[in-house]
Each structure stands twice: as C-alpha cells, then as structure tokens.
C-alpha cells in the first residue's frame, strides 16, 4: 500500500512541475522567448518556434524518464524520501533545458540601444494595498499569538513534548523539552505570516512593464494580473498561517494532555491548501497569462518597454539587476508571477535575511535537540 502512496505522490509532484514547464512558453508576454526579449515579430518566427519545439520535446522526455524512475524507486525501496527524487530530477532537467533554450534565444535578440521606458502619468491606478496590509497584520497577529500561547504554557509542559504528528493526527515522535522544541513551530508561524503577508504587500506595489503605444491596454492587463496575484497570495497566506497556528496551539495542548492530537480534518485542510495553491497558479496562468499577457492580445504587436525588454538588465533571463530601479519585485520574464530586483540591496537583504533566519533556526534546533 505504501508503495502506491509514494508512487501517487511522486507522480503528482512530477507531473505538476512538468506541466508548468510545458505551460510557461504559452503564457509569456509577446516578444519574450525563454527569458530573452527578441521583439514581437521574431517571437513568432520559425527560429523561435524551433526553440519552443525543442523545449517541449525535452520536457516531455524528461517527464517520461522521471515517472519511470519514480515507479521503479517506489517499489524498490521503502524509503519515503525516494518519492522526491524524480521531482528533483525534473527540476534539474528544467534548468538544463531552460539554459539551452535561453542561449539559443539570445541569438535572436535585437541589437542596438535599449528600448525606451514608459510610465503612465496617472496617480489613481495603483492596486489597493488594503487586503495585503490586512493579510500581513493577520499573519503577524496569528504568529504572535502562537508564540505567546506556547511561551505562556512552557513552564507547565512535561519533560518530553511531541515533535511530530502522524496521519491520524496523534503524536508519533517525542523529544526532551527545550526552548527550541517548544518554540520552533510558533516562531516559524510568525516568520511565515510576516513573509507571506509581506510578499503579498510587495506584489501589490510591484513594477509595471508597459507596451510603448498601447499604454492603456497594457496597463489595465497588468493591473488586473497584479491584483489577481496579490489576492491569490493573500488567500494562500491566510489559509496557511491559520492552519499552522492551529497546529502550534494544538501541539501545546497535546503536550499538556488537554487534547489527544491535532484537530480532526487538519490533514485534509493541508492537502486542500496545497491543491488550491497549485490550482490557483494554473488558473492565474490560464486566465491572465504572465503579466496579463492573455488579456492584451488585441494590441499586442506594439513593443514592450524598459522593464521587460532591456536585455542588459537581465542575467540569464531570470535575474533582474537594476541598481537605479527602486522596485522590489518585477514581472518574471519566464514563469508566472514576480521576481526580485537583485540590484535593489533592500530587496536582497529582506529575502536573504529571511532565508538566513529560517536556516539559522533549523540549524540551532538540530544542534540543541
């Protein structure tokens, strides 16, 4: 039975990653090709289509290999970590195939000066920041509550506390009580609440990239896309932080003997959030396209401008580096959603600081347990 669960998990992960990889070339803003601005006309040329065909063939082949490998691993070893091997291979294949397509696309990039930058002189068209601000506040409040609740009951906890819960919701692993075994989860909830809420707020203020002579169409498409991504992040953030807060509170109650396990249905809630997050990503891609690409089809032949079209600002088509640009987040050139402006030291410090904090907590927890 376990083999079938591993196989199903592996299949879902691998197919989701492979499916997004096949979807990405179909949802990019016209003029972009695998992270390179090649111009609107060239992005539909025979050479561009050949590069996309090569990508599709590569992804399908790697998907087949990964599924086959996963099938063998799931029956050959009882080790649960085997289920994640194929999806990691799929990610490696994605990167290799992306770089191959990127360097082929570079040959199609236009020479000459960078395209002009365009901005609307209209102050009333900002995405509302109220929902992300409330999400950020709710996330921080939930995390603070989880921390306070755990700390308030710390002294009364027994010498050993539960550190892991099985599929039934009851604890299946215990460790000696220490600051980190008790406080790690609530601190993590606080950090996740602040991070996800913060990312939603920054997304509402992300950089806009317009087309040069279709400013209105391009602007509206992007504003709708940005608002949709912001709402998506807010919903995912609220659900995830709510679930983690429940888990944190109930792990304290279990330690105190006030409850037998996590609240019933929390595992289903977790699966629903994961499915909803993936489903929401697919919906955004199909409904809006990256940066609202699917909404601007009517006037799509006008050229893209500065933010997305200036190849000098992009490293490998993935990393936007512009020291002058005060933007934290900018549209991805390939994929769905937004990426950091790696030229903005504040943006880099925020994200690297968060990652360092998470890693630091994990290391300290491992050393002290």
């Amino acid at each position: 039975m376990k083999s079938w669960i591993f196989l199903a998990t592996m299949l879902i992960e691998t197919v989701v990653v492979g499916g997004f990889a096949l979807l990405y070339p179909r949802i990019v803003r016209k003029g972009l090709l695998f992270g390179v601005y090649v111009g609107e006309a060239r992005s539909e040329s025979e050479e561009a289509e050949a590069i996309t065909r090569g990508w599709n063939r590569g992804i399908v082949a790697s998907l087949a290999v990964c599924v086959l490998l996963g099938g063998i691993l799931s029956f050959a070893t009882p080790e649960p970590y085997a289920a994640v091997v194929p999806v990691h291979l799929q990610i490696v294949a994605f990167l290799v195939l992306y770089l191959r397509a990127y360097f082929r696309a570079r040959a199609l990039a236009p020479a000459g000066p960078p395209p002009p930058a365009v901005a609307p002189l209209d102050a009333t068209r900002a995405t509302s920041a109220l929902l992300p601000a409330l999400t950020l506040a709710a996330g921080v409040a939930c995390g603070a509550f989880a921390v306070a609740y755990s700390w308030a009951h710390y002294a009364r906890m027994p010498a050993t506390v539960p550190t892991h819960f099985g599929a039934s919701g009851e604890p299946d692993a215990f460790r000696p009580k220490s600051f980190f075994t008790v406080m790690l989860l609530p601190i993590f909830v606080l950090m996740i609440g602040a991070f996800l809420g913060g990312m939603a707020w920054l997304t509402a203020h992300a950089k806009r990239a317009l087309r040069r002579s279709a400013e209105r169409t391009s602007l509206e498409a992007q504003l709708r896309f940005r608002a949709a991504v912001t709402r998506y992040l807010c919903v995912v953030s609220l659900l995830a932080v709510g679930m983690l807060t429940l888990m944190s509170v109930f792990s304290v109650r279990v330690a105190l003997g006030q409850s037998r396990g996590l609240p019933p249905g929390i595992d289903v809630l977790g699966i629903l959030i994961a499915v909803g997050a993936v489903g929401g990503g697919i919906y955004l891609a199909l409904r809006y396209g990256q940066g609202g690409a699917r909404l601007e089809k009517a006037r799509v032949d006008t050229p893209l401008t500065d933010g997305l079209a200036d190849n000098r600002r992009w490293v490998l088509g993935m990393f936007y580096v512009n020291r002058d640009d005060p933007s934290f987040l900018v549209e991805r050139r390939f994929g769905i959603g937004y990426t950091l402006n790696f030229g903005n030291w504040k943006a880099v410090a925020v994200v690297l600081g968060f990652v360092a904090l998470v890693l630091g907590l994990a290391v300290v927890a491992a050393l002290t347990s």
Partner: protein
Amino acid sequence: MRNPVLTVDWSLDEPVYEQIARQIRMRVVAGELAPGAALPAVRTLASDLGVNLNTVARAYRLLEEQGFIRIRNRSGAEVAAPAPRADASARDRLRAELAEVLARMRQGGLSPEEIRRLAEREIAALSRARDVEGGGIR
C-alpha cells in the same frame, strides 16, 4: 480617453530628469494634465521607468520651481494652475529666459523671420490648448 504617458529615451543626450520635466511641462501646456490633476508618486514613477528616485525627485523639484506643479507631501504632486498674473520680478526672470532661448535659436541658424513664425505657431497652440481646457474636456 487616452491616458497621458511619459517616455524616457536612453539614446538621447538630454538628461533623464530633463526629459521627465520637459514632457510633464508639455502635457500641462497642451491641457492633457489639468490643474489639480494628481501626478504619480515619486517612487511609482521611478519604479515604472526603472530610474533612480532622486532623478524623478529632481524633475519634480524643477517643475515646482518653474510653477508647473505643487509638491503636496513627501512624494505626491499635483499640477498647479497658471498664475493669474506675473509680478514684476517673475516677468523680468521670464523675459531673461526668453531672451536666452531666442539667442540660442539665432545662434542655431534661424533667421528672425523663422523665429517669429515658430513663436507665433507655439503661441497659437498654447491658446488652443487653453481653449480646450476651458471647454471642459477635463
């Protein structure tokens, strides 16, 4: 209605803050930006254009000194209404600026007759823009 936009052309020798200030001036004079119309915050405009915050702030300060906009708070701005009447010192300063422009035009090879025709055309365009604005487009 078409939204007024601003373009920064990297291939021009003109500094970026001057390009921004010049285009906003032109939009104001043409009536595309009416008195009281809110301009984007410095951060929003800098982010859209991918330029430094100080560049946009410098353009806004220049426009404020020239009387085209009013800076409302730390980052917002709105289009200023034309002054009802120029006082004596403003009149002297503007006359000096006009003399400088005329000298540059003469030095650039334009004859007095060509300069007069160009000036009349610009004054006519300015009057048309004021008429449209007065006619209630915005």
